[in-house]
């Protein structure tokens, strides 16, 4: 395979050259343990401080509200379990949605086994929760609302500021998983009344294995990983200095160039969506038409199955995804696509194209050229398509 066009930036991004260059010295030269007394460790302490500031600035938080973790999954686990443990004497009810990432859903299910009650809010056909439902779901013993900023499969962005307002009015802590939104969407934790926010570096051209949790000053949250006194005694473990430095640089770059990048990416994405919908019959766009991530196109094709589609695309040098990469180990249809009301078969036949910095007009032209044939080929194999065609003859 000569050509390889990557259309799966929501699964992960390459670490950009600029980011990697910032990281390298911290592997081999400034490698000291930042907790040490001697002066060479000071460079690392400073590097971490700088990264903390870069992350804080991007989301309008204060430096001492940023706590580095091993990624978005750990941040989600910490936020939810940490609040549950801190506030269980106040109440044991948590509100989340049906379309959260598994890092949130499986954590909530874990807490259910421990005696917590969890309300999983429905979403509409575009993947948005209803603010009215949210208000109705809040009870005396509700201690946490966890609603993701933007969805990883269908790209839908929630009304975060409204949710923050409701949470504040009702005195409930508000956590949002912003792993997908970070870097491409404007985030202001103060203005949006966000108490906790999960982040991950590898979705924005930073390294894998590092993320952060924003914890608003004053929010009581138990430590989750116990041990040394790192991260102000809140997250133990020798700091991943190169990773943290890379995260800082990556988030700074993402927000420095956000508006420009967004324009470019939206144009490409709209070309993908329009091109597919116009050229492939029985296809539909999943997610919200406008309130969606700039780089996300999620489209369902009736009568075909996603894995087959991905393999055929792969043979033609195109990397894409069908639902979240994290769940590809699973055989169940995507819980997100089910939640927006797709029938089983349609949920199976979905394609997620997520664009990134290396993608060009030519890449999109190529995709639009090969995709209709591939879909047709799979449909020709499909008994569902056969039945449908016979019915409509």
């Amino acid at each position, binding site marked *: 395979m000569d050509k390889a066009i990557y259309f799966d930036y929501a699964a992960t991004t390459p670490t950009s050259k600029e980011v990697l260059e910032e990281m390298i010295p911290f592997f081999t030269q400034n490698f000291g343990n930042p907790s040490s*007394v001697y002066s060479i460790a000071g460079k690392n*302490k400073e590097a971490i401080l700088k990264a903390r500031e870069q992350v804080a600035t991007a989301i309008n938080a204060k430096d001492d509200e940023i706590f580095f973790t091993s990624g978005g999954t750990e941040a989600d686990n910490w936020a939810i379990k940490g609040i549950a443990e*801190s506030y269980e004497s106040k109440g044991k009810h948590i509100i989340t949605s049906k379309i959260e990432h598994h890092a949130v859903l499986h954590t909530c299910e874990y807490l259910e086994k421990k005696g917590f009650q969890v309300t999983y809010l429905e979403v509409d056909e575009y993947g948005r929760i209803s603010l009215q439902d949210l208000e109705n779901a809040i009870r005396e013993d509700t201690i946490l609302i966890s609603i993701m900023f933007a969805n990883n499969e269908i790209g839908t962005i929630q009304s975060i500021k409204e949710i923050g307002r409701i949470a504040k009015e009702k005195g409930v802590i508000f956590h949002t998983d912003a792993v997908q939104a970070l870097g491409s969407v404007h985030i202001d934790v103060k203005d949006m009344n966000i108490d906790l926010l999960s982040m991950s570096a590898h979705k924005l051209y930073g390294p894998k294995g590092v993320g952060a949790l924003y914890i608003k000053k004053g929010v009581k949250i*138990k*430590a989750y990983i116990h041990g040394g006194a790192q991260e*102000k005694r*809140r997250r133990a473990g020798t700091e991943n200095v190169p990773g943290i430095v890379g995260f800082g640089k990556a988030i700074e770059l993402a927000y420095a160039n956000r508006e420009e990048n967004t324009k470019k990416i939206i144009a490409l994405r709209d070309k993908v969506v329009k091109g597919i919908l116009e050229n492939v019959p029985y296809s539909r766009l999943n997610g919200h038409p406008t309130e969606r991530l700039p780089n996300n196109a999620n489209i369902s094709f009736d009568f075909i199955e996603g894995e087959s589609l991905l393999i055929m695309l792969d043979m033609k040098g195109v990397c894409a995804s069908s639902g979240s990469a994290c769940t590809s180990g699973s055989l169940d249809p995507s819980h997100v696509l089910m939640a927006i009301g797709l029938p089983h078969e349609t949920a199976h036949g979905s394609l997620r194209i997520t664009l990134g910095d290396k993608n060009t007009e030519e890449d999109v032209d190529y995709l639009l050229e090969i995709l209709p044939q591939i879909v047709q080929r799979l449909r020709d194999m499909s008994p569902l398509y056969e039945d449908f065609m016979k019915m409509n003859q």
Partner: protein
Amino acid sequence: MYTEKVMDHFMNPRNMGEIENASGTGTVGNAKCGDIMRIFLDVEDNIIKDVKFKTFGCGAAVATSSMATELVKGKSIEEALQVTNRSVMEALDGLPKAKVHCSLLAEEAIHAALWDYAQKHNIEIEGLEPPKEDVHDHDHDDDEE
């Protein structure tokens, strides 16, 4: 982690040593953090003519001892009483948060030495209280939870 001034006073401590037959000495410390400070005073006509210190402790403890002796040397007893841990810290351009308590040791050691002087000479120094057993309360400002 320390300012240049702290490092200077740590590496080149002023007034380190002992005074034979001092008019007052004070030793304070906290067995828990293990740090101990001793101040020797030579007082003549209500003026601190000479002062020396010895310290078993961290960098901040040594530097604050050194700076505190500088601040009280040549001063009257009343003026010396005005030297607080804050003024010592300010003179050192600040200390890391976790080391603020170390500066209390210097203030207390001077007070203890003055108390000893007062006891020995049977005088009363206004505003001076008997030295405490344990100086620093270890209030790590842990943000946990």
